[in-house]
């Protein structure tokens, strides 16, 4: 327990000045000395039985505040034990944090432009490296871990199969349900099959698969590469004469390039299957007429469109994940940051690419597309 007594120009502290007391004591003394005129003040510490580092910090803080008000605080009758603690823990005030300088608008725009250009340059480098090593790797397997392609194909593709199937079924089911409610009013219920077939093949199949891949595989690629960077594994690979892009990324690139179109086809078929359930149960269209209607509306170029999109999306997911993974700097918190950024950026670029490809296919093949 700390006792504080103010007599004239002497402030006496007695008892224990520890971290439990220091905060309260400082507030108390501030109140008592609020009206003191400038001059000399004596801090009598003779009654102090024990003091810890928080107590010393309190005395330092008090002296600094009094000095700022023109009150010179002198320590008197300091016991030996307290004196030792003061010698050990007494320190000048902590430096004030550096104020944040707000840059001008032009500076910030210019800075953002330079950073964007730098990002684009690094990305181009990564794309070139990956495509080069992917092509070279087809003929020369040196520098790529044996069995990694199969392993990655299972991780990226096979393990994603149940979730892609389930989500695709539900999307096909919901789309059919929503469109059936409208089309049956015009006696055009059979066109649910046309609508779902085209939507799933050209848009929804590739897009659902890509978004699921971005969440599953894009994040995994970014997190793995970022962790490898943080734990110096990529440096270790380089020191062994191995290129991390070739050794780590290329097998994933092969795997995603192969498995994503396959899963996209699966997504399209299962999505149409989901719609078929609605056709049969809600619209009274049997599986056979539904199937025949689907086959009349779908052309090879629709399937090709979906497959081309799926390959482009696969490359975006792998490369964006790799870009963010390789860009991780610092410690473990950066792994989380780049992983999140990779998923968000992948989804954004996938949707942007989908829009651009949609325009190309639409105008490139005439409005009847």
């Amino acid at each position, binding site marked *: 327990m700390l006792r504080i007594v103010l007599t004239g120009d002497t402030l006496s502290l007695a008892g224990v000045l520890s*971290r439990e007391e220091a*905060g309260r004591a400082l*507030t108390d003394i501030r109140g008592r000395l609020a009206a003191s005129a400038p001059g000399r003040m004596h801090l009598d510490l003779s009654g102090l039985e024990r003091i810890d580092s928080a107590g010393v*910090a*309190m005395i*330092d803080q008090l002296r600094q505040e009094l000095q700022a008000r023109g009150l010179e605080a002198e320590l008197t009758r300091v016991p030996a034990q307290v004196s030792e603690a003061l010698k050990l823990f007494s*320190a000048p005030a902590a430096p004030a944090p550096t104020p944040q300088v707000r840059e001008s608008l032009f500076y910030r725009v210019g800075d953002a432009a330079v950073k964007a250009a730098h990002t684009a340059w690094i990305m181009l480098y990564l794309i070139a490296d990956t495509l080069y090593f992917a092509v070279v790797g087809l003929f020369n397997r040196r520098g790529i871990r044996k069995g990694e392609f199969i392993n990655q194909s299972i991780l990226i593709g096979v393990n994603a199969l149940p979730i892609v199937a389930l989500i695709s079924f539900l999307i096909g089911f919901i789309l059919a349900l929503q469109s059936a409610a409208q089309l049956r009013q015009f006696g055009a219920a059979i066109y649910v099959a046309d609508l779902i077939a085209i939507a799933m093949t050209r848009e929804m199949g590739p897009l659902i698969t890509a978004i699921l891949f971005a969440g599953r595989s894009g994040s995994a690629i970014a997190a793995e590469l970022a962790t490898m960077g943080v734990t110096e594994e990529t440096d270790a690979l380089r020191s062994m004469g191995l290129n991390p892009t070739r050794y780590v990324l290329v097998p994933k690139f092969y795997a995603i390039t192969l498995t994503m179109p396959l899963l996209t086809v699966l997504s399209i078929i299962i999505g149409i299957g989901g719609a078929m359930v609605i056709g049969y149960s809600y619209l009274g269209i049997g599986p056979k007429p539904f199937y025949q209607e689907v086959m009349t509306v779908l052309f090879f170029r629709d399937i090709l469109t979906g497959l081309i999109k799926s390959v482009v999306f696969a490359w975006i997911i792998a490369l964006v994940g790799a870009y963010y993974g390789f860009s991780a700097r*610092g*410690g473990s918190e950066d792994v989380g940051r780049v992983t999140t950024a990779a998923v968000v950026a992948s989804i954004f670029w996938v949707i942007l690419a989908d829009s651009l490809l949609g325009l190309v296919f639409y105008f490139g093949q005439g409005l009847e597309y």
Partner: protein
Amino acid sequence: MEREREMREIVRVRGLHAGYDEEEILHDISLTALAGDVTVILGASGCGKTTLLKHLIRLYVPSRGSIELFGREITTMDEPEFDELLQQVGVLFQNGALLNSISVAENVAIPLEQHTTLPPELIARLVHTKLRLVEMDQALDKRPAELSGGMRKRAALARAIILDPPLLFCDEPSAGLDPTTSAGLDYLLLKLRDELGMSMVIVTHVVASIKRIADRCIFMDQGEVLFSGTLKEAESSGLEKIERFFREG
């Protein structure tokens, strides 16, 4: 004499058995660390030193045995009581274990912000004091990722001693440091013992460091305590494993 020794026992372990899953790593460990001493737990890699240390701070629960800190049994202590006790204990982890997402000063301030009612100006001052004590006051605003291994260790030490704990546990303080930095850290630990009267339990296998700091040694081998005594007694114990450790270490 025996009574006086018992009064000085700050850590006391009796018949400790522990392990992971089905595998027992520590077999019937008994040891004591005395107040004001630097007690070094040494032994070859994989002998169970770090596992033992983590049991002493209850990060792991033993399968049986007793662990007392400050004369209080911790294996059966309830959570709030143990949290209270932990305020008297500082821990320096092998890699510092600073939180990477915040600055050095914010790292060091965590125990003060969580366990005291000190106002922000006193917290800032204390953080500065402790970082100055470990010669890291120039790195207040830096992120841990911007520091070298030795600097991270010193910053982590400032965090470990921020509440003036009477007992400090250190896991491999010399690991990954060059001999000069390692020696600097050892002298800093000795300074804390001498000037703050802090007791320490240090896990290490670095012989040069052991010779600099150890008051007492506990030599572990394959999950058992092979020897316990002063450094001089250890070196002249006549035990082949210990002699080889000091000779080749």
